[in-house]
């Protein structure tokens, strides 16, 4: 591991900005940090706690035009250009991007996602503090886990310990003024883990438990949990008419929305809040693992933190483990 001093950070960021666009945590309002295009390296906040939106929208934008079509000109497909450096990604969010790869890159791959992914270098950032909602260690990662990033930074006094994990990462670090590290890797903060494998084993037996109905009582059917989730990827596709044709748009959607599965006939197989809430949970802890061999959750805790009515996914996991969900 090498050392990047705080003093040399700016120069490195400037050189990254010279190579492409730099996306990093930026404070937009007091208490609100978001991954944003950096205009001045001084904006970058690498001590940020959390962003409400994970960096998934860099690859899977909240909205994008799939194509435009007109009978006279045929298809026009928006081009994806340039190179992007995504800096300051915590291990949970780096895992989130890895999880997103499963649906979008498995055949038939989504060429937009693939192209953006190819053009982006992910520079991870270790967590020196844990938040009360963190449970990333449940998913085989930890606060200082560099996996799923091309390069990784660990904050230490005076700067960062720096490591390239891939060729892309090495290229991004090439312009950084690095010193040999004499500082040991700090001890990661405590993050409690939940035995999600054990949950997965028993979960399906609780499919018809009244627990889901009780939990759903207070659910609002908003889409906060899905939109702040690094691994939720439901989407919708619709056309917008243009002057001489159509633009087909893909946008984020969520299985929590009351209209999500409603058919044109009015029939809706997931009419109740409980069935929708249950679907989200099982998708993450049963269906997604069945399909892709990994849990659809990173333990970032965003859904816990941002749910307006405190539907805490960890409580559900514990309830299943403790068998409470069976009776509740």
């Amino acid at each position, binding site marked *: 591991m090498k050392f990047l001093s705080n003093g040399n950070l700016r120069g490195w960021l400037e050189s990254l900005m010279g190579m492409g666009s730099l996306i990093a945590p930026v404070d937009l309002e007091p208490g609100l940090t978001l991954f944003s295009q950096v205009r001045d390296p001084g904006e970058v906040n690498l001590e940020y706690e959390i962003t409400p939106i994970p960096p998934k929208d860099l690859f899977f934008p909240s909205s994008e035009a799939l194509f435009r079509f007109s009978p*006279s000109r045929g298809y026009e497909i928006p081009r994806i250009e340039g190179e992007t450096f995504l800096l300051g990604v915590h291990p949970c969010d780096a895992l989130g991007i890895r999880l997103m790869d499963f649906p979008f890159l498995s055949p038939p791959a989504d060429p937009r996602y693939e192209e953006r992914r190819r053009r982006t270098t992910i520079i991870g950032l270790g967590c020196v503090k844990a938040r009360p909602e963190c449970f990333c260690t449940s998913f085989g990662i930890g606060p200082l886990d560099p996996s799923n990033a091309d390069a990784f930074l660990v904050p230490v006094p005076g700067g960062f310990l720096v490591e390239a994990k891939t060729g892309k990462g090495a290229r991004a670090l090439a312009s950084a003024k690095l010193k040999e590290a004499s500082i040991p890797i700090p001890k990661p903060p405590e993050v409690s883990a939940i035995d999600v494998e054990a949950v997965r084993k028993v979960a399906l037996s609780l499919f018809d438990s009244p627990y889901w109905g009780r939990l759903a009582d207070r659910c609002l059917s908003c889409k906060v949990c899905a939109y702040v989730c690094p691994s939720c990827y439901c989407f919708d596709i619709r056309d917008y008419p243009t002057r001489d044709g159509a633009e087909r748009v893909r946008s984020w959607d969520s299985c929590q929305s009351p209209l999500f599965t409603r058919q044109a006939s009015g029939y809706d197989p997931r009419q109740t809040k409980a069935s929708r809430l249950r679907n989200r949970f099982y998708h993450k802890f049963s269906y997604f693992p069945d399909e892709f061999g990994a849990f659809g959750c990173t333990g970032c805790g965003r859904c816990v933190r941002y749910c307006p009515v405190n539907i805490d996914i960890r409580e559900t996991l514990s309830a299943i483990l403790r068998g409470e969900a069976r009776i509740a």
Partner: protein
Amino acid sequence: MARIGVFICHCGHNIAGVIDVGRVVEAAKRMPGVAYAGDYIYCCSDPGQAFIRQAIKENRLTRVVVGACSPRMHEKTFQEVLASAGLNPFLLEMANLREHCSWVHSEAKEEATEKAIDLIRMAVAKASRAEPLFAKPIPITKRALVVGGGIAGIQAALDIANAGFEVVLVEREPTIGGKMAKFDKTFPTLDCASCILTPRMVEVAKHPNIRLMTYAEVEEVKGYAGNFEVRIRQKARKVDHSKCTGCGTCWQKCPTKVPSEFDLGLGKRTAIYIPFPQAVPPKPVIDTVNCRYMAYLEFVRSGREGKPPPQCRICEKLCPTGAINWDEEDAIITERFGAIVVATGYDLFDPSQIPQYGYGRLDNVITSLEFERILNASGPTGGRILLKDGREPKRVAIVHCVGSRDLNYNEYCSKVCCMYSMKYAHLIKERIPDAEVYEFYIDVRSAGKGFEEFYNRVLDEGVRFVRGKVAEIFKGKDGLSVRFEDTLTGGRHVLSVDMVILACGLVPQRDAGEVARIFKLSRSPDGFFLEKHPKLDPVNTHADGVFLAGACIGPCDIPDAVARGSAAAAKAIGLLSRDEILSEPMTAIVDISKCSGCMLCEEICPFDAIEPQVVRGKRVARVKEELCKGCGSCAAACRSGAINLRGFTHQQLLAEVEAL
């Protein structure tokens, strides 16, 4: 994704002289959904219509946009073209390239052409979202209600009844006859008013198709053209008219005398009374306020102390048929009608509003209607023209335009005052040959059959016409003094007279506002009821199925009132002759899957056309299409867009906005 045809009309040079039609056509061809675009010199002409029809067929068009004049001009024309080509007429959209573009931007041809392209694009967008609309047939109730038993209402009732339809004639006074029954003679023919009116009144009473409801008032009207549901209050008469023979014993013997409304307080009537000898029905009512026995009952009921009034009950004792019924109360009757004629008449302008004329303060300053009673043989003076002290007047001033043609009161001309004033002059001259009569006028308006001739006749009779407004009437040394300005000679003068007749204008009935509310009528700024169109639809109203007759529309004379009565009757007969009517196709419609049942629409609807219903356990709104007039206030108020307006849907209007 309809197949839209666009037709641009040159309108000769009107459009093509400003707008580059060729460019508009080319632009239209590139608009989404447009399968055909072409132009024609006059689209509304027969060959133009044929051209459109042919293009519809050849190009299998499913929607049509015509860029031409205002839809208010030719929408119907082109709708019929669509219908004749087998398309629903509501699949037409017009772009107003003439009134809203070429005519108003004739100096900016380039911009006008660009604007025309935009207007076509908006119309194309709207047309692409147009849906076929259909009018629904609604069966009708073949009965008519006529409200008001004056000459207009009488005429309307008779005409409708003679056409074979059942009529209910509602009159709030105890008799029909209205104002005309109070008149002595009619101008200019000098017929005796009652002589010509009474047979008509009797005819009404006897007509097998007419049910007369006097002393009754309409309280509520629900429903819609073809199917009104009307609540009528029959006021308590305390006399059982089915038993009463109208023998007259009761009103001859009744000891209570009170001022007669019919004689405008100049004469007296009894507490049990008929308003005048020729009243129809010729059966009395009891005035419960002034009847002694009613006063006695009221005293007993109130539990007050002291000596009760006498019980009287003379009428009851004398009535040979036992028709007096003290227990009778107001009765509410609900009836269904297909058509309604409103003939509620007018009021006389109240001249006490003009204090300088001294009406109510000075003796022998009287209104025209009071003078009619004085002239009338059955009136308070037995037809003799007398001053308050019983003398005959020798000098009489008639003041025209009292409350009319006066910006302080009513700007309009009351139309009849000139003529009746001259009628008065003639009658005064006839009955008091040596009397001097002065007519103070602004202009003499004598347009009408035989009117000018009558004016000349009165001039020949020596009536003095003074052009000028009367400034003041005051008590002079000897009788009354009239201060006036003679605008022909320019001088200010004072004239001594014995009597002043104020030729009062005609104003809406005092309760016209309430009547308008009940029948959902509009009123013009002068307060009279508003016709659907003052020229072309003078007896229809915006409330479909409600027609107007007589002076409730505005001042008119007797022949006008009769003509209006017949006209309204013709409209009502026209409606009742049909087995069904077609509903308005552009009505509101509820998508119950989007409706939250908040019923904001119900609160807003000006026509009570929305009501709640329960569908699969859920409360949602329902539009009563027969009542909906298609204003769309509900659609604009509905947050979830569950209510839409056919013909102007959210989709269509938004498409127009988006096309900008």
